[in-house]
């Protein structure tokens, strides 16, 4: 297979104050090739594709597209040259319909009727059925992604960049997406596929470029390598998977009975009759595509959203009607997904943020007066135990990188000798080594007798640490099942299958 190169990137370097995001990066994508860009969080993948898409200008180095110099000054120029991108976070208006959203992203949108029929024909041609008249607010995450993809396909791109496209999809939806991408590739469209999910890359991609700390460390053909080999190239070290102490299950610590609450979030998902129990020493993993009630479940368990008294029970005591501090007093700690603004106050120091949720269980106040010395010691303890990289405990939370703040937030909750732990997305944005240590810390608490609920969109993570498994789908929770013996198909069906999206594949 010697196809001509579509895009060549040669010696590209980009530095930000204090960090070199890309250093002398070179690689090439052939016409019609599916090329993986692989690396941990912070390895420089995003900066690299932003340069290709014209969002960021490289400091040095050059790019060529079909042999001619390619220097897009802005995304519009990149699109004009045939480069399109689907972002990890969608830029869609929920209160507008599909066709209106697509029209907003076009330079010269055709009349609505014509556009709607175009959307319909393109989406059917590529096996991504979409109704142009539907409100985006009513679509599932997978369907929203289709809107973004169709928006790109209408521009007839030569190169399609996809940033972590499967993080919001069920396994079945991933299959549909891959079929579409393969079809595009067969028609000659090159795809730059960014991910850190190794099995997906092995299944889909022709070539892979592996980045570590801003540098290209390897290129390989994913089919010829094992996932483990690629992971070690990506991390630059051998990985030790977390160990489980063979904990025995104890009495029920957390019981949720028929919990129904309305979502406090606009366009949120209300919880409908959620029931489960978690025993002492047990880890319950809750999967689900983003936006199916994960945030609401955390709020209802932490006490930020109130429910009926009997809907949430800690050690048999009904606490559904109480607030966060009453539940903390009974041993429940919670770590929300959103670090800045929810789990931590951005402009406050780490010391103040340690006080935020630790005041009660760590006894940091006396008659309401704050013991700052003890609070500082607590913050320093978290920084030390969880390897938070920071110049000190007096810096503002917003000054920490996402991964380091995540370690701080999770560490703060786990350091309070909890009996019930609820965590949403425990390792989101954390590098592999730190993720492993967070998972190990969670397992250690479980081994020590804590009941743990982990809500995550990372299936591999859940299968690694959970004893039992359930999935949230449109605010409903499936009946928890033991992890042992679950197949990926069963998990996919628990997560809602393909969310009713039928596969109408052309020519299949």
């Amino acid at each position, binding site marked *: 297979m010697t196809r001509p190169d579509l895009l060549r990137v040669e010696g590209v370097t980009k530095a930000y104050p204090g960090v070199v995001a890309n250093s002398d990066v070179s690689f090439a994508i052939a016409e019609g090739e599916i090329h993986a860009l692989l690396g941990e969080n912070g390895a420089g993948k995003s900066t690299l594709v932003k340069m290709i898409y014209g969002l960021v*200008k490289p400091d040095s180095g050059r790019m060529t597209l079909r042999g001619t110099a390619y220097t897009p000054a802005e995304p519009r120029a990149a699109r004009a040259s045939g480069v399109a991108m689907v972002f990890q976070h969608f830029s869609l208006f929920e209160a507008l319909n599909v066709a209106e959203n697509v029209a907003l992203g076009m330079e010269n949108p055709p009349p609505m009727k014509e556009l709607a029929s175009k959307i319909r024909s393109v989406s059917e041609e590529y096996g991504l059925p979409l109704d142009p008249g539907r409100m985006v607010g009513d679509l599932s995450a997978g369907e929203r992604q289709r809107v973004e993809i169709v928006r790109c396909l209408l521009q007839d791109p030569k190169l399609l960049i996809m940033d972590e496209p499967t993080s919001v999809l069920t396994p079945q939806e991933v299959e549909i997406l891959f079929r579409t991408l393969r079809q595009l590739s067969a028609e000659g469209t090159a795809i730059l596929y960014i991910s850190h999910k190794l099995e997906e890359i092995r299944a889909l991609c022709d070539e892979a470029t592996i980045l570590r700390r801003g540098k290209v460390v390897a290129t390989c053909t994913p089919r010829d390598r094992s996932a483990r080999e690629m992971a070690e190239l990506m991390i630059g070290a051998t990985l030790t998977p977390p160990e489980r102490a063979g904990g025995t299950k104890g009495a029920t610590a957390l019981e949720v009975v028929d919990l129904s609450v309305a979502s406090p979030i606009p366009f949120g998902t209300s919880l409908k009759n959620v029931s489960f129990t978690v025993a002492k020493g047990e880890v319950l993993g809750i999967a689900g595509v983003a936006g199916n009630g994960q945030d609401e479940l955390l709020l209802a368990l932490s006490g930020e959203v109130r429910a009926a008294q009997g809907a949430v029970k800690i050690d048999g005591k009904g606490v559904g009607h109480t607030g966060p501090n009453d539940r*903390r007093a009974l041993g429940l700690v919670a770590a*929300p997904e959103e670090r800045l603004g*929810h789990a931590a106050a*951005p*402009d*406050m120091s780490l010391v103040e943020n340690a006080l*935020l949720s630790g005041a*009660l269980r760590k006894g940091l106040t006396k008659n309401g007066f704050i013991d700052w010395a003890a609070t500082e010691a607590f913050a320093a303890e978290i920084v030390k135990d969880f390897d938070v990289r920071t110049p000190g405990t007096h810096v503002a939370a917003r*000054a920490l990188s996402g991964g380091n703040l995540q370690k701080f937030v999770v560490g703060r909750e786990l350091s309070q000798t909890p009996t019930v732990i609820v965590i949403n997305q425990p390792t989101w944005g954390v590098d592999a080594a730190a993720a492993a240590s967070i998972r190990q810390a969670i397992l250690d608490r479980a081994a020590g007798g804590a009941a743990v609920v982990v809500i995550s969109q990372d299936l591999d993570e859940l299968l690694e640490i959970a004893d039992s498994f359930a999935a949230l789908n449109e605010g409903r929770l499936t009946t928890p099942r033991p992890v042992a013996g679950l197949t990926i198909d069963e998990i996919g069906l628990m997560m809602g299958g393909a969310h009713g999206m039928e596969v109408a594949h052309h020519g299949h």
Partner: protein
Amino acid sequence: MLRLEKRPSPSRFWQGATPILAVVLTMIAGGLMFAALGKNPFEAIRTIFWDPLFHPQFASYSRPQLLVKAGPLILIAIGLSLGFRAGIWNIGAEGQYIMGALFGAGVGLAFYPADLWFIFPLMVIAGAFGGWIWAMIPAILKTKFNTNEILVSLLMVYIAQNFLSSMSLGLLRNPEGGGFPGSRNLSQYPAASNPELIAGTGMHWGVIAAFMAVIAAYILLQRHILGFHIKLAGQAPRAARYAGVNPTGLVLLCMGISGALAGLAGLFEVSGPAGQISIDFNVGYGFTAIIVAFLGRLNPIGILLAGLLMALTYIGGELAQFMLGLPAAAIQAFQGMLLFFLLAVDLLSNYRIRLAHKKEAI
């Protein structure tokens, strides 16, 4: 080209230095304005900042005025700053100030002419209650019906003003006043008066209350979990709910404290410097205190200094009108500049200015 770059953490140096820089910039810009008006800028600035305290002829009159004017401003601003920190916007301190004065004076006058030791303490309680209850109206409407406290508290000011005129013309009118509007003069009723405590200083109980409020607010914000929750609710409301802060309770508390302190300021004013309830009793302390609160960047010590500075520019401004014939509008523009520069240079504590070497798209 200049470019702003966000600092990772707010700069402690600039947090302290920006008010001084703002005063200097105001003096320069104000001096240019005075020069454009044909006055000697150095003389004008000396008249505003120096003469009220040290002029051989006028200082004996104007120096005590500094504390008399700064006292209520500081007392009200301290209360407002707690709410502002929590994102609760009580704009109606002027009305709470009036109601505090009416409640307090009403209690005092009810005892006239008895000479009992507990009358003044009772008036203090009544004054605080009057301001508190007036602030509770927007607070409860907000927590029960989700109304906007900015609008409701502001509109309550106009209701209070009408109360004030009807009281000074009716119920509280001095029966021996020959039909003139206005109540009996409380400064001539020793059991209910708030006299100058040390002659020639302007120091009265309201000023002492203001200093105590500064200290209490400082301790609350630095050392107490409630102060921490107030700051947290203002900076990150969702994190505050996660920390267990009850938003309804916080609204009632902050509105209540600011209302009670404004009511106290009104009571001390009516029983001291003003002396009586009259139609034009209120002179805008409740609104100026909003400026003082922000000028002091919602920090108790800052508010203490800002209150004194604001009082100084008022007294100095009057002096400059009278001595140099400067128009009142020029003085107001000068005071406006002070606030403008303060808010503008405040940027430096969170951002640093960089020279951008080349155009860059991020």
